[in-house]
């Protein structure tokens, strides 16, 4: 049992005498408690409980220690009720009166704490939702994800159904193994009906997850995996409530999805929306329906590798052993189908509510948000601490009076701490309101996005408990310094009260403001970096103009179209659309010109060694029509652009991008050859480079193969047209209906909108960081103003003397400005150092911007410096207006 650091930190806050006396005994008692409870309850709960014990004991322990050190006086009998309820109530009443007497201070502190803690609470709500709240499934700890681990593969590539069947039928470990795949569905029969997200899944999906339907049933094995048997659907509780108003008639009735009728056989319990957090599914359909729902795909083809797999460990299984077994099974299909299953290995990992490709970016993103919001909280605490310290000299007279009248110093510490606690309690209340507001805004923002994210951002008990704990700890940390300062002043028990604070307090206050400036520099730099990355992302040149480019995907049912027929169909469709006067050019592609997915294929190049440890190059391949380059606006630099080829009879040819040509054939690519699947392909042209994977900052080698030689049933139309989206949609629908009226009409989407979605993380980050940065900025400026005004108050006499001796107002003004400048300078320097240290953390999120971008740093420091100087100028001007006569009379 080792103590976690928060507990150790709290331990250190106990009075030294108490710690020295009881440390060993406390360790022993903790160990005993751990042994009794550790086995049944999770460690975090144990330590939470232990920390609660410690933090509630902290204040009473200090008080009794103080009482013993400063024995009670006779006259103080009524004050001796230190541990009774009465004393506490009296303290709280007294503290409340004090706070009401200084409304400006109270309001300022409450606002600062509320904003700081509110930001923290809002971020923690997100962390709670994404990482901490367990999925509503049976024993989530036993579930494991199976990932593909193949050189060159991307995280969007999964498993084929036949591969899955191999694993499932031959494995001996794992209680169950499930395959599923997300699918976009159109609900209802009208064109452009509601788009909803669904899952296609194998039979034991619900059983392995441990989700039992609230009503009805789930699929039978026969329905799930036998083609043509499974026109049944299971729906989410939300789907039932939202779309059918919770009507009892839904069970057993038909709903239409992608033009196919499904009978609803089951409704899932509320709270279950699929295994991925943030991407709620509404409908679950049998895997066997994939081919009909998504024409152009073939479930029982080894090339169709879009399934995700997860399983459940039995008590006797280990992740490593299960992975070894699955890999042994994987070797078999590799031998039987070397072209499709080359080097396919799997890794297993603990089940997560995040898609594998999202885990590290999301964790990193949340980490950054937590760091930023903690910085804001730190700035707020520094601010409040400063304000409380500022009251010190004024309080000292009051404290001295009360001590003289018989109050114990311990009582005074308690009094001041109670005030701080009350202040932070008010702040915590404000924080909850702020967090609710922020969550509301965030929720609205998420809903306005075109990707259909779904989060239920709610303040549950865990979030509130954390907020409370943070308030308690920050209150003690913030209040203890000023309280001890005040009592030390009071212990001198003098009624001689000078308005000037002691130099110790002044130095502490200056340090606080320097800290605030540093924190706000860090916040502002981070915010600006995100903003610049977002702007860069919008400006990043993909190598072609997305203006006026639209896309629509068309899938042909494989039972009615052979590959040859598909070629004829798509070529005719594209040619027909190209005759429309509103459409400038039409291209066909099996991949998007700017997408998220890579599509690598194994190929060899005569005379070139593949990378070490591999027997081939894995290079992305796009299958496109001859008109594609024209439509997208990709320039042909050398040779011809697949134009010579319009059927399958010619010799196999390809076009490569300039990067590929430079990489393999610097002396001219045209006429060279490469080998794919053992077939030789001649390169007939070189085209300009484009960025084709959106997250990538670089241009990678790319091979274009002619659609005519590699036809398929699922293609995207790329349309260059300046006409309205509605017109394009109508034109596509018309031409499609003329070609084959039974086909689904796809949605025509603008490419620029597609890109927007992928820039979402930067956009979100720049907004959140910007808001936090603005907060930090305000706090820092307020801090600088405060410290300069305060110093002015202290040095009024000295300044008066200077002016009486002939000092000019301008000299006094510049004296005060210089003081402000020193504080801002020290804070900025510290902030720059911290930002440089934080840089590596941000690198992954800043596409195209260096984390130590000098321009950003300079701008931030300059603008903060200017604002802070302005804040210092106001009191400095007041200093220059000091009348020596008044100043010298004042406060002697």
């Amino acid at each position, binding site marked *: 049992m080792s103590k976690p650091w928060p507990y150790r930190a709290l331990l250190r806050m106990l009075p030294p005498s108490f710690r020295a*006396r009881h440390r*060993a*005994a*406390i360790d*022993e*008692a903790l160990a005993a408690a751990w042994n009794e409870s550790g086995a049944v309850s999770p460690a975090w709960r144990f330590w939470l409980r232990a920390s609660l*014990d410690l933090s509630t004991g*902290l204040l009473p*322990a200090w008080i009794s220690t103080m009482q013993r050190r400063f024995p009670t006086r006779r006259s103080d009998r009524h004050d001796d009720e230190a541990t*009774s309820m009465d004393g506490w109530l009296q303290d709280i009443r007294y503290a409340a009166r004090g706070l009401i007497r200084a409304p400006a201070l109270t309001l300022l502190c409450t606002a600062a704490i509320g904003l700081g803690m509110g930001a923290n609470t809002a971020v923690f709500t997100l962390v709670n939702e994404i990482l901490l709240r367990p999925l509503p499934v049976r024993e989530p700890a036993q579930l494991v994800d199976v990932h593909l681990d193949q050189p060159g593969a991307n995280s969007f590539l999964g498993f084929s159904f036949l591969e899955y069947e191999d694993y499932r039928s031959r494995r001996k470990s794992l209680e169950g193994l499930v395959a599923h795949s997300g699918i976009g569905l159109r609900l209802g029969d009208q064109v452009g009906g509601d788009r909803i997200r669904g899952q296609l899944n194998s039979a034991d999906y619900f059983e392995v997850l441990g989700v039992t339907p609230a009503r009805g049933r789930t699929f039978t094995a026969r329905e799930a995996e036998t083609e043509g048997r499974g026109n049944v659907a299971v729906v989410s509780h939300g789907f039932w409530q939202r779309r059918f108003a919770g009507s009892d008639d839904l069970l057993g009735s038909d709903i239409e999805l992608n033009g196919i009728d499904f009978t609803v056989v089951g409704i899932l319990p509320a709270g279950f929306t699929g295994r991925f957090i943030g991407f709620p599914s509404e409908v679950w359909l049998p895997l066997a329906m994939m081919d009909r729902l998504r024409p152009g795909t073939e479930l029982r083809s080894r090339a169709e590798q879009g399934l995700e797999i997860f399983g459940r460990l039995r008590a006797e299984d280990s992740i490593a052993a299960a992975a070894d077994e699955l890999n042994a099974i994987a070797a078999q299909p590799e031998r039987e189908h070397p072209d499709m299953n080359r080097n396919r290995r799997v890794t297993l990992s603990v089940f997560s509510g995040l898609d594998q490709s999202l885990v590290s970016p999301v964790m990193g993103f949340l980490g950054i948000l937590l760091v930023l919001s903690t910085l804001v909280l730190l700035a707020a605490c520094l601010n409040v601490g400063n304000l409380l310290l500022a009251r010190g000299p004024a309080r000292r007279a009051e404290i001295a009076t009360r001590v003289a009248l018989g109050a114990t110093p311990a009582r005074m510490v308690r009094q001041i701490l109670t005030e701080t606690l009350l202040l932070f309690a008010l702040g915590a209340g404000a924080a909850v309101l702020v967090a609710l507001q922020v969550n509301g805004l965030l929720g609205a923002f998420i809903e306005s996005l075109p990707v259909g994210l779904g989060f239920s951002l709610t303040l549950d008990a865990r979030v509130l408990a954390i907020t409370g704990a943070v308030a308690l700890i920050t209150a003690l940390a913030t209040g203890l310094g000023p309280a001890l300062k005040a009592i030390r002043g009071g212990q001198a028990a003098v009624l001689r009260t000078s308005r000037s604070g002691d130099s110790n307090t002044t130095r502490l206050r200056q340090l606080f403001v320097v800290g605030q400036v540093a924190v706000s520099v860090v916040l502002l730099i981070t915010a600006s970096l995100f903003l610049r990355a977002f702007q860069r992302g919008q400006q990043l040149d993909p190598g072609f103009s997305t203006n006026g480019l639209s896309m629509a995907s068309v899938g042909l049912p494989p039972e009615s179209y052979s590959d040859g027929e598909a070629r004829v169909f798509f070529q005719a469709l594209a040619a027909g659309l190209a005759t429309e006067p509103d459409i400038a050019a039409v291209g066909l592609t099996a991949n998007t010109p700017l997408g998220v997915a890579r599509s690598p294929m194994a190929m060899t190049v005569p005379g070139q060694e593949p990378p070490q440890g591999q027997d081939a190059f894995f290079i992305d391949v796009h299958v496109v029509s001859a008109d594609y380059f024209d439509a997208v606006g990709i320039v042909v630099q050398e040779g011809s652009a697949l134009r010579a080829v319009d059927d399958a009879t010619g010799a196999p040819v390809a076009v490569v991008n300039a990067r590929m040509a430079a990489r393999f054939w610097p002396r001219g690519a045209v006429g060279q050859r490469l080998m794919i699947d053992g077939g030789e392909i001649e390169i007939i042209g070189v085209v300009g480079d484009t960025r084709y994977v959106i997250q990538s900052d670089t241009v990678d080698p790319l091979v274009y193969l002619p659609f005519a030689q590699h036809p398929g049933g699922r293609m995207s139309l790329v349309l260059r047209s300046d006409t309205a989206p509605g017109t394009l949609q109508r034109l596509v629908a018309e031409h499609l209906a003329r070609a084959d009226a039974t086909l689904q009409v796809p949605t025509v989407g603008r490419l620029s909108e597609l890109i927007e979605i992928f820039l979402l993380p930067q956009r979100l980050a720049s907004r959140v960081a910007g808001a936090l940065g603005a907060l930090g900025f305000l706090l820092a400026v307020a801090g600088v103003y405060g410290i300069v005004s305060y110093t002015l108050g202290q040095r009024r006499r000295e300044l008066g003397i200077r002016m009486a001796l002939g000092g000019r107002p301008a000299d006094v003004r510049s004296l005060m400005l210089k003081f402000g400048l020193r504080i801002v300078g020290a804070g900025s320097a510290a902030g720059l150092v911290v930002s440089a240290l934080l840089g590596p953390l941000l690198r992954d999120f800043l596409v195209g911007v260096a984390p130590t971008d000098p321009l950003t740093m300079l701008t931030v420091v300059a603008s903060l410096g200017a604002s802070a100087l302005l804040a210092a100028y106001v009191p400095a001007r007041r200093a220059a207006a000091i009348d020596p006569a008044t100043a010298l009379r004042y406060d002697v």
Partner: protein
Amino acid sequence: MVRPLTAHGFQILLALSDEDRHGNGIVRRVLEVTEGAVRLWPVTLYRTLDELRHADLVEELSGSGHPQGESRRRRFYRLTDAGADRLAAEADRLDQLASVARRNLGHRGA
């Protein structure tokens, strides 16, 4: 009027009323008596013991007073006479409250 004991203070005095115990012994005894409902966590325990000691309701045994066979390292605590009086007074007070409660509820039942 005597100030009411805190709930934890009462539990500790009660645990020491039959025999001298060390810290963990008190924790275990309190768990036993309350059938697991009350667990004294370390800081609460030793803080309250300090307070009771300071009020002379509990005393700490010197090394020689340890029960036989027990480690010297552990500190044992014993109820003082004042502590016993205080516990008795508290018991009376609770008894009084309990009888009021029973009487009132009896009215209700009738």
